[in-house]
């Protein structure tokens, strides 16, 4: 955000005459030409269209704690406050500069000001003629534009004088802002990011309904002062110690009222000039002493002045204070801290006593603690609770029941039961799991009941159908053949183990006989399995070479086989 003192237009608003002249000279003669044009630069003068107001603080019709903020208006036309001259004739004397004052602000004086009125201080007149909105001499200096209607604000002259900025203050209260185009706060109206900002000088009173009015001060030399009015002597700004003045606002108000009362006695004859002389009851007495008897009980109404209202908006100043005050005054503590100890009765563990009606209908005193606790608790490692009763606890000291976790269980159940989509989701979750767990169970049963070798990843590969896999495994088992018939149970192998073989045992322990070893091993050789004798071979007669040679048919078969083998080899090697 960048701030500029002012942005002035190349031409101020007004009527202009453009004269173009040229002189043409050639040998023997000289001629001049000239031409005149009239042009008018037009800008907002007696009203500012709402589209030109890019924003305002406080927002229009807002309620809030605005008592420490200066209202301001943001205008999307960046040159607007400097497009006209406040006092072209120089009727207002230049401000006096005392020694030690900073140099006066540079730049032109804006012709608009933002004034803040509180409810009851002003009357907003809508759509009146310009002649009625400004005094006759001002109207004349405005060059008497005809058929102009405008809005005007009417207020007591004293009040307007009290809040009207002086020349220098007018300069200080208007500036131009350039904000980033991305800055959405002030850029709602679009544009290039330049805004004219006019700030008010009056803080809204707490609780007051206020109206901020952007007024035109063009030619209002009767209201704008060269020098600002007096500063409150006892205000903190003048170096007074804040502690000594209990209520500077009240003192200043008393002074204001005193001045007001003094002024009111003089211009009694002015009352006749006012359009609607009405008598109002005097303000609340500001002096505690009795006024002199000749002071009239009724006094003349204050002189009213009117100003052209370019635009205005209302807001209400109410609320508990600023963000800073609220946050600074917070009561900071851990949960479970109560201001009035014992109310509510809280145990040191953060539990609260409650009445509960149990299932039998009897009333009992139980303890409850919410999920928010003032100290760190370890997490219950027992993962699954299946019913609220499982989560009920009894405190050992008092025997009172602690329903905290049971209550949590029930809240969770009710919240879930209230959500139809959750019920659907949890049912889907279970259904899917049931199906897969049934499948896992089937696989486990098959593996247990049969000796089939199933793929080890079958339980994980959920897409594999079980039946074909089992069928395939069974076929494979058949193809691979049965286990050996002899010693199907492996008893012989067990029996031949050194520790169980009586012959080896007898040799190792140097026993007298195998029978002795057998008796040591349990007497009965049958328990270890009988040694199976090898079946006897079939006896065959010896064969001589002659018998082979005599077997012609056998030799012929051998020769044919040899021929066949040679032919095969030839074919394989390429036919030669």
């Amino acid at each position, binding site marked *: *955000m*960048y*701030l500029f003192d*002012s*942005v002035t237009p190349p031409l101020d608003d007004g009527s202009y005459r453009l004269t173009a002249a040229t002189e043409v000279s050639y040998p023997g003669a000289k001629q001049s030409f000239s031409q005149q044009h009239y042009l008018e630069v037009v800008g907002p003068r007696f009203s500012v269209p709402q589209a030109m107001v890019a924003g305002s603080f406080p927002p229009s019709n807002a309620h809030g704690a605005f008592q420490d903020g*200066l209202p301001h208006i943001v205008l999307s036309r960046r040159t607007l406050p400097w497009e006209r001259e406040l006092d072209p004739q120089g009727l207002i004397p230049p401000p006096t500069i005392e020694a030690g004052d*900073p140099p006066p602000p540079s730049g032109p004086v804006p012709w608009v000001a933002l004034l803040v009125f509180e409810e009851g201080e002003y009357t907003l007149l809508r759509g009146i003629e310009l002649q009625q909105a400004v005094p006759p001499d001002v109207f004349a200096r405005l060059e008497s534009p005809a058929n102009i209607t405008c809005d005007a604000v009417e207020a007591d002259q004293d009040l307007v004088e*009290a809040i009207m900025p002086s020349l*220098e*203050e007018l300069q200080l209260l*208007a500036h131009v802002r350039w904000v980033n185009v991305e800055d959405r706060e002030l850029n709602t109206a679009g544009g290039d990011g330049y805004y004219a900002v006019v700030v008010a000088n*009056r*803080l809204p009173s707490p609780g007051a309904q206020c109206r901020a009015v952007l007024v035109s001060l063009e030619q209002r030399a009767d209201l704008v002062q060269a020098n*600002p009015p007096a500063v*409150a002597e006892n*205000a903190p*700004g*003048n170096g007074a110690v*804040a502690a000594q003045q209990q*209520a500077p*606002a009240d003192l*200043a108000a008393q002074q204001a009222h005193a*001045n007001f009362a003094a002024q009111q006695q003089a211009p009694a004859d002015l009352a006749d000039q006012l359009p609607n002389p009405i008598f109002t009851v005097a303000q609340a007495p500001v002096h505690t002493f009795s006024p002199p008897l000749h002071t009239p009980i009724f006094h003349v109404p204050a002189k009213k002045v009117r100003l052209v209202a370019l635009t205005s908006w209302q807001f209400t100043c109410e*609320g*508990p204070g*600023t963000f800073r005050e*609220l*946050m*600074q005054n*917070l*009561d*900071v*503590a851990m*949960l*479970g801290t109560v201001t*009035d100890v014992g109310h*509510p009765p809280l145990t040191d563990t953060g539990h609260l006593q409650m009445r509960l009606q149990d299932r039998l209908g009897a009333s009992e005193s139980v303890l409850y603690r*919410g*999920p*928010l*606790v*003032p*100290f760190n608790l370890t997490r*219950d490692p027992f*993962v699954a609770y*299946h019913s609220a009763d499982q989560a009920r606890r009894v405190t050992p000291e008092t025997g009172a029941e602690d329903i905290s976790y*049971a*209550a*949590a269980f029930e*809240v*969770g*159940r009710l*919240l879930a039961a209230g959500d139809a*989509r959750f*019920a659907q989701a*949890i049912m889907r979750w279970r259904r899917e*799991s049931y199906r897969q767990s049934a499948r*896992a*169970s089937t696989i486990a049963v098959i593996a247990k009941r049969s000796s089939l070798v199933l793929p080890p990843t079958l339980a994980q590969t*959920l897409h594999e159908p079980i039946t074909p896999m089992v069928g395939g495994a069974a076929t494979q088992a058949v193809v691979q053949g049965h286990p050996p018939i002899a010693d199907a149970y492996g008893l012989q192998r067990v029996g031949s183990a050194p520790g169980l073989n009586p012959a080896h045992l007898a040799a190792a322990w140097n026993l007298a006989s195998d029978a002795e070893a057998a008796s040591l091993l349990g007497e009965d050789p049958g328990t270890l399995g009988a040694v199976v004798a090898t079946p006897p071979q079939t006896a065959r007669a010896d064969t001589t070479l002659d018998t082979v040679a005599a077997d012609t048919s056998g030799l012929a078969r051998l020769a044919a086989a040899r021929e066949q083998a040679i032919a095969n080899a030839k074919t394989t090697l390429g036919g030669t």
Partner: protein
Amino acid sequence: MRAASIDNPRALAERMVAKEQVDSTIPESTMPPYMEMFLAHLRLLIGVPFEYLVPDARLLPDESIRFFYVDRSWTDRLVDGAIAVGKSGTREQAHHQAHSADVKAQLDLTERVVRTLQRGLSAPREREETPAQITTGFLLRSAAVSGWPSMDVRAFSEIVPAAPSNVDDPAFAQWTTSAEAVQLRTLRLELLSPSVLLALFDGIPKLVWCEEPHHGIEFGITMKDGSPFFLDRHEASGAGEQGAAPVPVPVRAANPRVVAVAQLRKQLAQLNDPKLVPQTGSAGFAIELLQLPWRQRFEGDTSERRHSSGAFVSDYPVASVITQQTVRDAVTELL
């Protein structure tokens, strides 16, 4: 009617022991997304009636802030209760028993992305696999909640010093980096009612700050107990001058709520504070009138009573002198 497959009294125990369940790593056994998010929301106490959180209104009086730890057992029971819906037999119980550890572990991860998803952002691609932290938070009941919506709330595991006032300073970038390194994840930040704010953080904070929303930078003065008025000093960058005494604001005699603008400017100029904006015109004056957002800091150890402090923050570039060449060119062209 189909005969019950198991009918002996030890049916549940048998089922629990001889459970045949799908391994949790298998996609088919994971929770449906809606269920997972619902349970993760429950973990953050979303939807739990306020009476269950704060059983007595006196535990959270007006204009108070209460810090707390979240009892993770309580939230686990909440989840158990939710899963108990439709649990009518031993089959469901065995299923829950077998999966509860995985559900718990999964929710410990999911609960951290709830806020990201709530804000309409996509969840971070890589999920953290670190074990669940301690969850803490605070409840704030104040008119500041209703009056200043969308305030900025952050928590830090270490005490972060106040930010350097000048945003152009390299120290400011350094400060931002170091602050972000210790910032705790905000698990939940929600209004429970127009004036009650609930915040949950992932971890134990040593510093929590609440900042006035940056909706607009306004002009104004500071009031201390109604009157008198003060003005905070601002440097040329718009930043609040650290440690400087506020300037008393003069008012007009005729109306004590009208700021004596010319007199105020005179006093500002007479302060001869080299850090202040030179009072050449309305721009410099406006910078001095800026009201900066307030940042309230709550510091302290976990179990002790936290003390609070605050400061105005000024992370806003405001300049009286244009230093950037592009901007200077743009302005020159314009004027």
